[in-house]
């Protein structure tokens, strides 16, 4: 019986060599023809990463600690300021300061490139339904394809090291900022845009004066998501030679050194909390409305403050 039904199975008659095709495409066509082009892409990433990493490593700990705590306090309130100060002390005390700074440099570099590429792409997508339609499957693929799958071609094209790690991070972390920029601009009330045009604004003025400011909170939410995704790529990027906290985790894993692996994870989590709180606060409209450390404020921060604050604003009208 099963022999009969196998007649209707395509694999009975042969195999479609998709794997060979992809192998040929990447190895024999993409790499030999475009390697120089990809190397050129690498240059600006490399330059930015080097300067940020160099700067962060050069700043003495007490100065960095003080500046970071004050910034966090001014931007996100006293609670986040204290949290930042304590976390940074802990990170240094457990002996992973240099690794943390390297990871921070990688994340800042990746997020910077994501913002520079993602915000304009999101604006274009908001302006043109056709462009948005074309972009959507690409973003879907970027978000769903397992990271390990594109690590191989990235290594072939860019080699190993920090920069390929950052490039893999950019590919992985880019979609949210594009999607949320698109969404944010599309959500700006029609009457607002109309008001802009009715008073004689050019397209550019409408974008700068109305659409971007009103979409800012959504765009910042996108950047926040991009940042979190970038942090989650740190360990995977270490597989292709990126250093920092990811490497600490990776070597701990390789040697079955639970303590070391935990240290790396500890650093990543603390860094993630600090960056998340601070960037979320940057998206809030005024310091007065930033979430405090009341029970409701914390709950709101944890459960995506954007919606509840928007509801409040709507109720206020």
């Amino acid at each position, binding site marked *: 019986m099963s022999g009969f039904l196998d007649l209707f199975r395509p694999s009975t008659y042969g195999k479609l060599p998709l794997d060979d095709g992809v192998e040929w495409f990447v190895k024999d066509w993409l790499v030999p023809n475009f390697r120089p082009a990809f190397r050129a892409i690498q240059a600006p990433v490399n330059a930015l990463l080097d300067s940020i990493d160099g700067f962060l490593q050069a700043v003495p700990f007490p100065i960095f600690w003080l500046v970071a705590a004050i910034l966090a306090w001014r931007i996100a309130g006293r609670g986040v300021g204290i949290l930042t100060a304590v976390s940074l002390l802990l990170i240094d005390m457990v002996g992973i300061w240099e690794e943390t700074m390297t990871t921070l440099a990688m994340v800042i570099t990746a997020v910077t490139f994501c913002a520079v590429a993602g915000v304009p792409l999101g604006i274009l997508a908001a302006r043109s339904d056709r462009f948005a339609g074309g972009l959507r499957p690409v973003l879907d693929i970027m978000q769903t394809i397992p990271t390990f799958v594109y690590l191989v071609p990235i290594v072939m094209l860019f080699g190993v090291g920090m920069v390929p790690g950052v490039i893999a991070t950019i590919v992985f972390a880019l979609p949210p900022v594009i999607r949320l920029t698109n969404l944010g601009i599309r959500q700006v009330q029609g*009457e*607002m845009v*109309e008001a802009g*045009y*009715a*008073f*004689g604004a050019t397209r550019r003025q409408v974008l700068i004066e109305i659409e971007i*400011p009103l979409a800012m909170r959504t765009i910042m939410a996108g950047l926040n998501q991009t940042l979190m995704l970038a942090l989650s790529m740190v360990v995977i990027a270490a597989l292709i030679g990126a250093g920092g906290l990811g490497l600490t985790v990776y070597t701990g894993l390789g040697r079955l050194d639970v303590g070391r692996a935990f240290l790396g994870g500890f650093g990543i989590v603390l860094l993630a909390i600090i960056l998340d709180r601070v960037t979320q606060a940057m998206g809030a409209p005024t310091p007065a409305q930033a979430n405090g450390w009341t029970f409701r404020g914390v709950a709101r921060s944890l459960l995506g403050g954007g919606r509840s604050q928007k509801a409040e604003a709507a109720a206020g009208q």
Partner: protein
Amino acid sequence: MQDKIVVKNLYKIFGPDADKAAELAGAGKEKDEVFRETQGVVAVNDISFSVQEQQIFVVMGLSGSGKSTLIRCLNRLIEPTSGQIIIDGADVTAAGPSELREIRRSKMAMVFQHFALLPHRTVLENAAFALKLRGLSKKDRNDKAMRALEAVGLGAWADSLPSQLSGGMQQRVGIARSLAAEPQILLMDEPFSALDPLIRREMQDELIGLQRDFKTTIVFITHDLHEALKLGDQIAVMRDGGFVQVGPPQAIVTDPADDYVRAFVQDVDRARVVTMGSIAEQVEPIVLGRDDLASARRKIAQAPYSALPVLDARGKLKGLLSEGALAEGGRPHLERLVPDEMQTTPEDVSLHDAFSLFAKGEPVAVLDEKGRLAGIVDPQAVFSHLSGGDAPEEEQAEAERPAAPTAPSHDAA
């Protein structure tokens, strides 16, 4: 008065095959038919009108009647399918992009139903929005915006954010924003619909004052008939993309063009719309120095009332002479008779405001702008006009006559 805005044969059709839909609509097909055949929605269907300088032209209609589309066609936020919009003799539909921006920045400003204020900008920055787009220096635009804010009574709130203001105040900012550029034309798209009734009435009164001060021509959209009657020098009733009737408020109420308008106006308090001038009846007055006792008696006998106004030789109203007073006799000369005091009122006063004058049950004299007698109103005529549509023929004849005297008196106001 000059025509500020002239609109000729304006069409706006949404849908895939606008040209064919326009052709069908032009051939007089119904909105539903056009939609069935072309999937095109006729939002504005062959509308022509003109607005005189410094008038308030109110477009009234229910939601879906196309009134919002119409007002957006005027500044081309929505591109009309065909037709002409002529402002000060220049065709707006032919303007290029930069020319159009210039018109929007300095000539035509707009006020929105939901205010459309920028939440991240202060009240002053919002009021200065149009001036900023025009490229004025910060000082210049803030000075002008401040003047506009003071005109709407919000000078003290310049540094607040819109979210700190109540709805009525937010719309004042919206009006200040539109006035700051000193436009000649204001387009107002249901500006007071989102406000509470009390605030709404206050804003309506204020708008009339602002219009007088800033000397703007206003196109005002509303779905509220009372608002239309209160503000409009001319009212257009809109339905299914077309104008059903255009006329001064009183004509809309007293002489509705069809059942649709009639259904609309049936609950209106006529006393607030009908003016004394419009129901005044012309009578032949008794003129001192020209009439003697006999001719005065004859005139009163022929008059519909038992009393007549008395004028002196120069045409000035002296008072009211009743049949009873004449009949008393004993006084041989007309001049010796002292006429009773007569209540007077200007032509543009509404019946509602004139009620107290009828307290004695005597006719009231209606005077024109120069203080001359235009006619008299008998208490009974007031009641027959308030009751409305009982005698359609008679009513129509009366409604046509008053249209002429009321329109200019509105301008004067």
